[in-house]
């Protein structure tokens, strides 16, 4: 038997599509709206969440039998906040430039409902290895949506990808701008992120009928 049994593999692949945290579980929407105006911010946030959710799920899973149920949400919050603050402090001391890039994400990670959501729904009821895989799977599913949304918002809103002007210069009127194309500034605002996520949900549901609820 390999490192990952079929069941384990499902923990990783499921959240990528049919059980995606953003489009199906509707977790982590706030950060998906807030930071997807640029592709680079989406990628940084995805990596940060991958780390925090992977480690956090393991920690909560190890503590699952001793956490008093009455205060479990507070305990989860303390675990994730402590983890993030430790990483932030260590980076500030040993990798200052990196910490400058990440510091704006700290608040967004602590309050990200995908983290609390997976602690509550999975790590409290499963062992550490499974919880780790669940954390990785869900953060990859989250990353996929963030990167798709970030890609379209930056491309259509600013005409750039990762800061590179792929469509030409809007002020000098080169590239496609020479033919009268204009950037859509509305794409940079949060409502268009929600609409983009909505379109992804629509595409996903029309391809997979199992996801459509009966009324």
């Amino acid at each position: 038997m390999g490192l990952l049994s079929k069941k384990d593999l499902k923990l990783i692949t499921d959240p990528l599509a049919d059980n995606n945290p953003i489009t199906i579980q509707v977790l982590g929407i706030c950060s998906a709206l807030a930071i997807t105006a640029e592709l680079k911010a989406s990628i940084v946030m995805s990596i940060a969440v991958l780390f925090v959710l992977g480690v956090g799920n393991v920690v909560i899973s190890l503590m699952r039998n001793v956490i008093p149920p009455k205060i479990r949400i507070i305990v989860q919050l303390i675990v994730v906040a402590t983890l993030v603050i430790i990483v932030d402090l260590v980076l500030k001391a040993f990798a200052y430039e990196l910490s400058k890039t990440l510091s704006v994400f700290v608040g967004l990670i602590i309050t990200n409902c995908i983290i609390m959501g997976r602690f509550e729904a999975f790590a409290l009821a499963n062992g550490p290895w499974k919880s780790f895989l669940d954390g990785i799977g869900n953060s990859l599913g989250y990353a996929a949506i963030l990167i798709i949304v970030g890609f379209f918002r930056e491309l259509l809103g600013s005409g750039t990808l990762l800061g590179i002007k792929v469509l030409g210069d809007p002020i000098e009127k080169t590239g496609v701008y020479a033919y009268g194309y204009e950037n859509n500034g509305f794409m940079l605002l949060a409502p268009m992120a929600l609409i983009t996520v909505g379109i992804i949900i629509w595409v996903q549901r029309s391809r997979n009928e199992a996801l459509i609820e009966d009324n």
Partner: protein
Amino acid sequence: MAKNTDSNVYTILFATGMVVIVGALLAFLAASLKDKITENKRIEKQQNILYAMGVNENDETSVEFVSKAIVGDEFSKYITKQLVITGTDVVEDENAYLIDLKKEKAASEAENRERKLPLFVGNKEGVEYYIIPVRGKGLWDAIWGYVAIDNQLVVQGVFFDHAGETPGLGSNIKERFFMDDFKGEHFLDGDLFKGISVSKGNADPKNLDKTDFEVDAIAGSTITGNGLAAMLKKDLQMYVPYLKTIKQ
């Protein structure tokens, strides 16, 4: 399971234990890393000041400071004088760059005295630069920066930074395309102080008009931009009486 994790006594004990452990851990970590973090912040200040006066390792689009290893030497090479202005009184102080603008503002207001204003005088290839530190409020948190001007009181370079503006929107105040727009801008109309506003729809997106007291705003970051303009207006104005004495 034998252990009753639902009992009140257990819950209270668990909560107390957790708070003590987490509190001790974080306090220990913060205290033991404090020196390193303060040192990093000091180096960053020197890098920022040098960046504003054009001493940096930028290529076409990137924001690159002079490296950590040489910043101390570069700082003493390019920054010829550091002044502290208090009312009409001007003294030299080689640690003026360590003045914490936020604390100094609060202290001067509490003690009802004139605020100490740090000003850095740099010299690069024979050109004198006067670098003014500024600090204000963005959308979520503090924003700050350094404005370098020449002896004609024209902006020659700026550096802005922020604590927590929205990534991809307000956080772009520290990107080249925004900061470079300030080069050549005026903030005085003759003797009248105007500041530099960050304006939407100023009909000058190429920023060719350097005496319109405006730069082009970033889409989706209105409040950060307004905060930045207010910061420049408020903080630059305090230096105007002194700056008029250096104008040639």
